[in-house]
């Protein structure tokens, strides 16, 4: 045990010296992660999209049609940027990317309402952008419904009902909406706890593969192993310890940015979030080690590790839910520790779920820490055999 610690210490000293000499290390474990976190914090600093340009085709030109237009314009997301004279004009503006929706108010709009005849409002929203579509559909619908409700109240009070009776008449079933866990429907709350760990993961994979792979590429692998007293565990521990330490620091910085700068709520256990993040880093370090061991080639391991990390986002089901994916795709999603990590984030940050619900996720991630280490004997072999070195 004493020998092991001494060997690890020797590798650690060798490694700190290498890190201080190689600017690439510092870039990967200090500079770029912080830049990427800052990017997302800035990107989501507004949190919600406001004033998305739309056009209104008002064929009625009455005071009521102008009132609806005003009410639509007053919604948080829609901005009536164009008043158009034909639907063709609306289509053209949409194809030119200047507007995202066209609202059509038909002729005789006011006349029909005043004579107690049903009329209509059509909303043509682009489906090319689902996010924008969702925001606009909801807000414009709310505006029109509110307008319509106002008309109803007027009609009913004219018939002698009190305002209260009219309300009961107008909305026999009232419904109280409770938005659980992200009440502001804030994109920053939803996306920063997913994009930032994504960045942390990419740098974990890149830095770990680089740290090990560069020994093979520059043919210094045997010297590295020798410094560790020919123990691959000591050599690996000494090599990865500084990287792991730096990445843990980055993880803490990331969490500080998520909670303090972006302002994501923390409804559950911080200890669980922290533990999940640490295991997340370790699992990707472990997988990266396995990749270098199997490929014995820095660049190829980087390509595969990079490809694997970038895919993780889709398979986490955060944007397009896993539930909607085809069965084999759902199996694939289990192969990315990122999925478990974001599950923990959703449970502990947003939902405030009891800690027990996050324990299985920790368990799965631990599996990804332990299993790849089966490749250690192979790593030792490629560190001793020259035929694996110097590959581009």
């Amino acid at each position: 045990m004493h020998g092991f610690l001494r060997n690890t210490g020797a590798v650690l000293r060798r490694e700190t010296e290498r890190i201080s000499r190689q600017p690439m290390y510092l870039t990967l474990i200090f500079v770029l992660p912080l830049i990427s976190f800052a990017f997302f914090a800035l990107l989501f600093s507004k949190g919600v999209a406001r004033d998305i340009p739309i056009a209104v085709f008002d064929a009625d030109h009455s005071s009521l049609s102008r009132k609806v237009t005003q009410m639509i314009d007053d919604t948080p997301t829609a901005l009536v940027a164009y008043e158009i004279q034909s639907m063709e004009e609306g289509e053209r503006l949409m194809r030119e990317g200047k507007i995202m929706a066209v609202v059509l108010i038909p002729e005789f709009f006011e006349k029909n309402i005043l004579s107690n005849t049903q009329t209509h409002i059509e909303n043509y929203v682009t489906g090319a952008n689902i996010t924008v579509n969702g925001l606009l559909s909801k807000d414009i619908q709310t505006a029109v419904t509110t307008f319509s409700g106002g008309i109803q109240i007027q009609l009913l009070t004219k018939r002698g009902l009190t305002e209260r009776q009219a309300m009961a008449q107008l909305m026999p079933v009232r419904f109280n909406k409770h938005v659980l866990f992200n009440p502001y429907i804030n994109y920053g709350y939803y996306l920063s706890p997913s994009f930032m760990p994504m960045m942390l993961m990419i740098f974990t994979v890149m830095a770990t593969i680089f740290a090990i792979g560069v020994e093979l590429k520059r043919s210094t692998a045997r010297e590295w192993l020798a410094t560790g007293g020919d123990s691959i565990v000591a050599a690996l521990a000494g090599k990865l310890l500084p990287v792991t330490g730096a990445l843990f620091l980055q993880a803490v910085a990331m969490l500080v940015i998520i909670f303090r700068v972006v302002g994501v709520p923390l409804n559950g256990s911080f200890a669980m979030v922290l533990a999940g993040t640490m295991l997340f880093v370790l699992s990707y370090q472990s997988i990266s080690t396995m990749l270098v061991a199997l490929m014995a080639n820095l660049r190829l391991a980087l390509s595969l590790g990079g490809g694997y990390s970038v895919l993780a986002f889709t398979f986490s089901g955060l944007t397009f839910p896993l539930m909607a994916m085809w069965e084999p795709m759902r199996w694939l999603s289990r192969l990315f520790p990122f999925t478990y990590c974001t599950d923990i984030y959703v449970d502990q940050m947003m939902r405030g779920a009891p800690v027990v619900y996050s324990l299985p996720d920790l368990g799965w991630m631990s599996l990804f820490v332990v299993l790849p280490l089966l490749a250690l004997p192979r790593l030792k072999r490629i560190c001793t055999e020259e035929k694996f070195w110097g590959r581009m």
Partner: protein
Amino acid sequence: MNRFTRQIKSYGEQFVAVVRNEFRTIFTDEGALLVLVFALLIYATTYSLAYGSQVLRNVPIGVIDESRTNASRTLIETFNAGPNTYVAYDPTNMEEAKELFFQRKIYGIVYIPSDYERQLLGGSQANVALYADASYFLMYRQVFQEIVTTIGATGAMVEFRRLIARGADIPQAQATTQPVIYQSHNLFNPYLGYGSFVMPAIIMVIIQQTLLIGIGMIGGTWRELGLYGKLCPLGRRRMSTLPIVLGRATAYALIYAVTTTYILGLHYKLFHYPDNGTTGAVVLFMAAYLAACIALSLAVSTLFRYRENSLLLLLWTSIPVLMLSGVSFPREGMPDWLFDFGQLFPSSHGVNGLIRIRTMGASLGEVLPEIKTLLILTVVYGGLALIGTHVVIGRETREK
């Protein structure tokens, strides 16, 4: 032969030599091949498969029915009738519902109080509570939309019956219940397919990123091994920069012409992505996009000193670049200066233009501003590529 034609002829020969050399480099380098040819095909296929089902349907919800009456059962049936939700559990109290929720068995809870039917029949307001989970946006949207629509429709029905009972005639009752019918139409992507929405953007970003990383990898390798000099034919001390940059660009343009034709053609058909624009518009637009991406990549590639650097330093930018194009996250939600910064990347214009042409059927004239910007970017980055290549070759000859 005068000096000018001799110069042109020499440029032509150099150009052909560079193109040939570039193809040899790419196709004998499995690393570059993986990034420049296969990455686009692999990613486009994997993502398309993940988004293959396109829409989220049948989100499970739980209903706590304290009323247990005909009226409440009718309401619950309507939740099952729509495509977006189905009642998977009927927990007896909120605690039980919460547990199901944490187990991810349900994504929304509807609470119907015990006085529901009484209030409804008595002519006053009945209350229903909806608890929807906004930690997954798409789930939230489906649950929310379905329940709001259903409850609205149920309410309108009750109101309509009450009015009829009071002696109103049908058109009158209709006009009072719903003076303004609101109809929303989704254009270009009627079922709001997720793949149809996000894949065009992802494909365009992958094209740019694989070019950046792949060309960067080759540039880094040449720097690392001092291979830029190999471009120089025997007997010449140095080679002109222009044919080098043009020749290399041509090689990549030819490779990507083949792969993007497959992706925007057959791949699009296989996954039924919207395909509205004319072929001519798509081809011309893609030509401008590829030119800008290749010029940017050639310029950036002269900065890398080692083979692995482009991958190490650029891989992470894929997601930020996708975000800056304003597709997954609307541009109105980000700070203006950040959006403006994103305009420096060809992808921002490429994503925008391609979606408008292929999804929305825009003509070439309607994406002219994007094409113009892409051409300006090509000229600027092309200029930087010339300068960069010149400097790199100069440094290499000096080092020798």
